[in-house]
């Protein structure tokens, strides 16, 4: 165990955990932000996607110690504009079905759009390919991303 300092959604947290604990467990269980989901725990589904310094990362396969002194953003930190535009586009395009994968989808889309405000279809597909959706909402995910692009992005 060790005391680690984390910054999540611009708030400071000090947690006493084993440094090798997956960041996902710390976010969900220690801190109690439940928007980030567990889907596979092995880095293959994208449900647990968060941003670490703006980069999309699978929190299930990131040790909490590797996120220390970095800015972590979770879905809960996406509620203000301009980031909120993604959520709004998701609602408008009626993307969500069971909803379980959507937090991760939204985080991956946000990371893409922060880095590349006008991605092509191919770039969208490449960026989003690690986020599985068994309900098959991919067509609408693409449409929602295009919608955000058309409305000037999230920068």
């Amino acid at each position, binding site marked *: 165990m060790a005391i680690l300092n984390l910054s999540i959604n611009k708030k400071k947290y000090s947690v006493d955990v084993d440094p090798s604990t997956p960041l996902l467990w710390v976010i969900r269980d220690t801190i109690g932000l439940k928007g980030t989901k567990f*889907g596979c725990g092995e880095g293959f589904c994208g449900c647990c996607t968060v941003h670490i310094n703006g980069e999309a990362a699978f929190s299930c396969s990131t040790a909490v110690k590797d996120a220390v002194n970095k800015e972590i953003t979770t879905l809960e930190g996406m509620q203000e504009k301009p980031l909120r535009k993604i959520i709004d586009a998701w609602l408008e395009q009626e993307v*969500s079905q069971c*909803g379980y994968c959507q937090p991760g989808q939204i985080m991956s889309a946000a990371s893409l759009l922060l880095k590349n405000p006008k991605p092509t279809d191919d770039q969208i597909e490449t960026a*989003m*390919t690690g986020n599985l959706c068994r309900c098959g909402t*991919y067509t609408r995910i693409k449409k929602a991303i295009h919608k955000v692009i058309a409305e000037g992005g999230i920068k």
Partner: protein
Amino acid sequence: MQEHESAILHCTGEAVFINDMPVSENLLIGHVIYSKHAHAKILEIDFSDAVKLKGVHSILSYKEIPGINQMGPIIHDELCMVENEVTSIGQAILLIAADSKEIAIEAEKLIEIKYEPLEAILSIESAIEKYNLLAPKRKIERGNLQKGFEDSAHIIEGTLKTGAQEHWYLETQICLCIPGEGNEIKAYSSTQHPSETQAIIAEVLGISSKDVEVEVKRIGGAFGGKETEANHIAAWCALLCNATKRPVKIHLFRDDDQIITGKRHRFLSKYKVGFNDEGIINAYSVELNSDAGSATDLSMAILERAMLHADNSYFIPNIKIIGRAYKTNMPSNVAMRGFGGPQAIAVIETAIDKIARYLKMDSAEIRYKNFYKIENNNISPYGQCIENNRLFILFDKLIKSSDYIKRREEINEFNKSNEFYKKGMAITPVKFGISFTTSFLNQAGALVNIYKDGTVLVNHGGTEMGQGLNTKILKITSKELGIKLVKIKVNATNTSKIPNTSATAASSGSDLNGMAVKNAIETIKSRLSEFVVDEFRKKYEGICSKKHNIKFENNFVYDIKIPERKISFNELISNAYLNQISLSSTGYYKTPNIGFDREKGQGKPFHYFAYGMAVSEVIVDTLTGYNKILRTDILHDAGDTLNKGIDKGQVIGGFIQGTGWVTTEDIKWDSDGHLLNHSPDTYKIPTIQDIPEDFRIELLEGYPNENTIRKSKAVGEPPLMLAFSVWLAIKDAISAVGNHEFEPDFSLPATNEVILLSIEKIRKLQKEPA
């Protein structure tokens, strides 16, 4: 547009799935120790060291089950926990409750289980060879098959293997149990069938259903995989909760989920089809053999649905359908979207595809010629009349809107001028029967409460798993009561509110529960209308208002004949309360006029049929087998849709899930029955890169359904089978390698490997002297 009622919660992270529920400090984590052998005697189990580990609170074997050691849903042939012999990998041997998952895993390492492996049946072929039937074979037949074949100018025979499919819901199986007073227990379970989960928990604990409450708020995807499998996790969780008298949660790891739970049934089917020079089918015989796995579960119902879909959309005068489910030492296979329908439809679609190649005609033409007709030739092999046939209208519209004929020519041109890339295209229909084929299951209940402030809480027996059921229920309630959506809430599904429900399955969730809700509302409306007539009589002079003229619309209740007589919904509710009018009612619905005689294989098993059709075009790299869907056009029949956005979403999602099954989702086991692709990196479900480049989905408009909730149709499962258009388009592209002169070898899924082998064989045949 009315988006999914939980969409905003999903997208802000506020939606509470079971794993997100706040839990008390003394929560224990449940862990399942399961069999690693497909078939073995258990010689010894030693957990004496494990139980001493700090943080371990309980380790249970079957001996500690207070009630019945059973969890088979229909036939009681599935032990809750293994006794002396394991009959498949994944069966629970021990259950651990510990302070954390890590401690439970440490404890597992200290447990020793000695097995004596026994001979195992691991493939459907060996089950057939040993004739290891699960239950007597089933049969449906009509006409004179022998004569049918004698009268046929041509006969084709074949065998088709269709593979298993993993559900891969993103939320793995989960249950949280909380102990109550005395025997009471409450289970939050990710189950499609709360009433059955309740009954099974009661049975294993040896208590009665009244003491077990099961609640389901929302499920993170199910697709049939939580229809019976969820009961297992819930039963194990309840046993640990009961033993420790503390809250316990079991949330399976992804690998464990894939290893323990059953899949879509693999089928090995044999068929023979007789037809004339025109391609019209005169005789068809098919043997559907399924791998049920180690227990009955729903295998017989799945086999039955397969048999009832052996005809897909085609009228076949002389037909014999045999169904056999075989017992193997695989984890018991379970329901999955389509429920046997896809496995049988794959066979008849293959037969049609072969007829076309044999006669050198376009398969679209063969399909069209064999469709059920409107006036005559419209009786299914099991005797149900195909009413309100939408096949011709779908076909005509789709052939035009997809530009089928022109694109077919373009594809032929492309294939002539390209050696290594080949394109293919296919149009395939689906006709899917809606209702549980076990007729008594077609019932549902609801409880509607109107509160004094005019807001409404709806309870029903269906579960929300992403299909948008609750959104549809909201709309039904809003329309029936004439009030705004914001005033209505759908409650979590709870067995203490609605008893004895059926699974949310067979695509029937909205049909059944929607009607039950409507009926509950009718009862309240009838009371309110009577009351309002009385109020109007006191208030207005002249002729009395009539009860049947009272309308609920736009937040008002009024007399349609004398519209100035009106009162706001809210005011009416508060007046009604003061006048001691009950503002709460249950509702009940059963599907009328259906029934199926299993022995005779005859009857009317379905309330109606849902139809759909799809055209897909693919490109195949003949050197690697890599393929891509270039374009898909779908026209689907959802009756008068209850929610266009949701129904189209179901069509897209079902189709994509189907494309996974027919292309990349190849489940492999080793020679001992161990699942080889139990992790997501080796089992490939569709990603965003696998959807059609050009994807056009429309719902058939202007064709209301009769006798269903707001004239709608069920839409959950049928679109999955539209993925056969992709599967057969790939086959068409392979066939182009040999200028459509050779029948390609083909199976399902059509993985790159299957495609390459098939192409290789055609190339070899091309080189052989005729």
